[in-house]
């Protein structure tokens, strides 16, 4: 018998931001959906329920008239379903295919990683957030989009402003203003380069959008580039840091991975499961229905907490542990269903094959800095915000 959504009014956004996992566990144990008063949304935290949601977009839609994301970025493919979504998704695919990533983007990413490490390799210490992960993700994204003359710091600031705007469930006015300014700056950066790809198609995302079978309109280009700037920067940045952090916290695993570089790839997948960079995203209930043990009403807003599902004990043994060698199984770090992360293969290559292995190769005996502990933050988006390390020079 399905019961109404239980209310939890003792879970604050501040507590979720500091460490969401104890709260996620309570929610998983309580019901299929839980109303968290401070976040003003019904949170779905169990693995099997999220699979149900992602396989049934008739009942659980991505389209959302009141979407904060539509307000901040325009109506992107992330908030469309079915045919409308598929057409735009297909348009960008050529830039993201694993073969294109391997053959076209890998040398570009390789050079960026080496250049960044060159700048601090002699210093013996650094905070990998600012010196490596953030510029790595930003510079690679800059290349993939096809921007020219955009500083990585600007792209990173735009991405942060958009993400803050999208996760602004508390509706802070300055956050909305900053997001709007970032949106305008991105439109200008697109306008500055778009024409160069009309006659000269290449592997960039802007070029793919222009030359697709169903070419993007300018509104579609703007909205989808913003989604890609939001989703293409924080996530590789955070997963670089989380993978390094997981390996540095677990010297035995690190030794085995360093001895067999093929293991960097599962080390990356496990990092994305352990601390999923996108912890929560929304869906909308289209009609009165039941999810698991909980009755939902038409119009209910759901927060799909993949960060919680990836620690579901019914699915993963010892789920709070970082374990490169756990049984291979599906995680939800890239989502599931038709909105499965388009950048999955880019991230696998950029993070798991290039950024993380290069750091371990080039920074001998890299260790966490005992005097400056790493800090992690966030629940809608989560990752290290500071990762100070030392090594031998």
């Amino acid at each position, binding site marked *: 018998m399905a019961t109404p959504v239980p209310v939890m009014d003792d879970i604050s956004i501040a507590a979720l931001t500091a460490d969401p996992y104890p709260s996620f566990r309570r929610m998983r144990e309580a019901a299929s959906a839980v109303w968290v008063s401070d976040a003003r949304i019904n949170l779905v935290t169990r693995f099997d329920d999220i699979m149900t949601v992602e396989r049934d977009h008739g009942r659980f839609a991505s389209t959302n008239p009141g979407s904060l994301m539509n307000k901040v970025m325009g109506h992107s493919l992330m908030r469309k379903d079915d045919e409308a979504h598929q057409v735009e*998704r297909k348009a960008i695919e*050529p830039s993201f295919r694993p*073969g294109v990533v391997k053959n076209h983007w890998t040398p570009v990413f390789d050079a960026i990683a080496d250049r960044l490490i060159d700048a601090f390799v002699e210093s013996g210490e650094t905070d990998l957030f600012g010196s490596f992960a953030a510029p790595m993700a930003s510079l690679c994204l800059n290349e993939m989009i096809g921007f020219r003359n955009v500083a990585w710091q600007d792209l990173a600031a735009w991405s942060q402003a958009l993400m803050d705007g999208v996760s602004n469930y508390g509706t802070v006015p300055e956050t909305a203003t900053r997001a709007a300014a970032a949106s305008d700056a991105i439109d200008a950066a697109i306008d500055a380069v778009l024409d160069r790809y009309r006659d000269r198609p290449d592997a960039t995302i802007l070029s793919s959008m222009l030359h697709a079978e169903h070419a993007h309109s300018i509104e579609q280009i703007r909205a989808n580039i913003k989604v890609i700037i939001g989703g293409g920067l924080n996530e590789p940045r955070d997963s670089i840091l989380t993978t390094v952090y997981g390996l540095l916290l677990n010297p035995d695993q690190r030794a085995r991975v360093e001895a067999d570089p093929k293991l960097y790839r599962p080390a990356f997948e496990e990092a994305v499961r352990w601390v999923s960079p996108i912890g929560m995203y929304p869906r909308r209930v289209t009609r009165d229905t039941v999810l698991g043990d909980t009755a939902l009403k038409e119009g209910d807003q759901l927060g799909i907490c993949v960060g919680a599902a990836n620690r579901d004990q019914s699915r993963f043994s010892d789920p709070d542990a970082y374990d490169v060698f756990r049984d291979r199984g*599906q995680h939800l770090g*890239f989502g599931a269903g038709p909105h*499965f992360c388009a950048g999955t293969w880019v991230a696998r290559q950029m993070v798991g094959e290039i950024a993380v292995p290069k750091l371990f190769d080039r920074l001998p005996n890299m260790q966490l800095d005992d005097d400056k502990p790493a800090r992690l933050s966030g629940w809608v988006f989560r990752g290290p915000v500071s990762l100070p390390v030392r090594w031998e020079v």
Partner: protein
Amino acid sequence: MVRITFIQPDGSRREIEAEPGDSVMQAALAHNVEGITAECNGSAACATCHAYFQEDRLGGLDAMAEHENDMLDFAACERRSGSRLSCQVKVTDALDGMTVTLPEMQ
């Protein structure tokens, strides 16, 4: 209905009756056939519904798009001449009696 036989890596066989119009991936999931993950539920983005179709009957299947062709090179198990992403193959009468072998892992 269209009869499709799935063969597991251990050699065990199971025949299902698939609904025309579904993809082979959807038909397998609907009958709880083991060995297909289908993380992206049919978007050709994850390569976790890889399967080996009967090589002498590939001509009767939907043609392979460039994207699927690229993705198959990155499936967890080796690509062979019968390799397809089962989400991109529609169930039609041409598949009746087809055998589909599942890889060791997705």
